[in-house]
């Protein structure tokens, strides 16, 4: 009985430790679907994209200089890959109280002004951001639709040249999606997402 109890305690401790370990997804994990409100008022879920081969999930926002620097490259990713089966889905992870520039109204304005061709959703509970383990904006997760679910194939930065000054930049996301489309192995499947830290809600 004692032994049984010890095992039970171990299992509980393991579960607690697992729950506390909030590192988010790693390459190879199956990513959870979500329901997030888009700037057009509709709810976005991965499951709605019947024809998709995968997704380019981008945690990004209005206010951050890195997000601004990458905005046109995010728009280009959708133009390049949505038709090939890898649409961009943008998620704003920030608490609009802490960062008013990232309010839903301001997101709507930016999406309309720039003519986003992809959904720009808000993670109001920040649960999706936490589950994925996004740390910064922009932070990209490339998912591939498979029989076992949406498998994370790439996590990190869009490229290694935020300011867009290096002609020999390494385009991590493009390389990853191209490899998936060609059925090849991804050379670099994980990089550091350099940008602004997520603005978490206070007191949660």
């Amino acid at each position, binding site marked *: 009985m004692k032994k049984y109890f010890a095992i039970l305690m171990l299992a509980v401790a393991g579960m607690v430790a697992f729950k506390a370990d909030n590192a988010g997804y790693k390459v190879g994990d199956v990513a959870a679907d979500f329901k997030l409100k888009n700037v057009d008022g509709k709810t976005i879920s991965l499951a709605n994209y019947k024809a998709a081969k995968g997704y380019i999930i981008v945690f990004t926002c209005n206010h951050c*200089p890195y997000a601004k620097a990458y905005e046109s490259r995010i728009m280009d990713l959708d133009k390049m890959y949505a038709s090939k089966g890898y649409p961009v889905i943008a998620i704003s992870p920030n608490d609009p109280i802490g960062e008013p520039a990232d309010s839903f109204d301001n997101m709507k304005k930016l999406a309309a002004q720039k003519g986003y061709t992809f959904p720009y959703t808000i993670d109001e509970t920040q649960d999706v951001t936490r589950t994925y383990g996004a*740390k*910064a904006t922009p932070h990209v997760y490339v998912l591939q639709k498979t029989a076992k679910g949406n498998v994370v194939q790439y996590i990190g930065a869009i490229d290694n*040249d*935020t300011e867009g000054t*290096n002609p020999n930049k390494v385009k991590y996301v493009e390389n990853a999606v191209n490899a998936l489309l060609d059925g090849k192995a991804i050379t670099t499947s994980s*990089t*550091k997402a*350099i940008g*602004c830290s997520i603005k978490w809600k206070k007191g949660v």
Partner: protein
Amino acid sequence: MKTFVFSIVLVLSGLFVSAQSKTVRLLNLQQLEKRVSNTDTVYVVNFWATWCGPCVKELPNFELLQKTYKNKPVKVLLISMDFKSKLNEVKAFAASRKLTSEVYLADKPSEQDFIDAIDKKWSGALPGTLIVNAKKHIRKFYEQEFTYAELNKLYLSNQ
């Protein structure tokens, strides 16, 4: 009279210049590593950016540390991770906040390489602080904000 007017102009222009700019130089990885390898001094290196709220909030703590220990062998380096094209903005910011510590703008052809070289565990999020005591072979990196008390403790426990 002419001399008088001239000296007034000189004084005024001097004031103008000091109010408008603060020396902020570009610093690349090699230059930084060389600097902190100096065994005579403990280096407290703060990575920040003008656009990063929590960074701007904690800058005075680093300034206070430098002032408190001005007669000790400790050097605070404030390294802005703003874009390289923002040198003038960083200078203006440093001047308007009257920063007295040494301020640099990181020259980082590849951010991934720069951040990895500072610390493998650093996600790239700001603020981040590196403390190096080359004499004692101490090099620690913290991806967090510091209160003055925490910063003081960090220095005292690694001096």
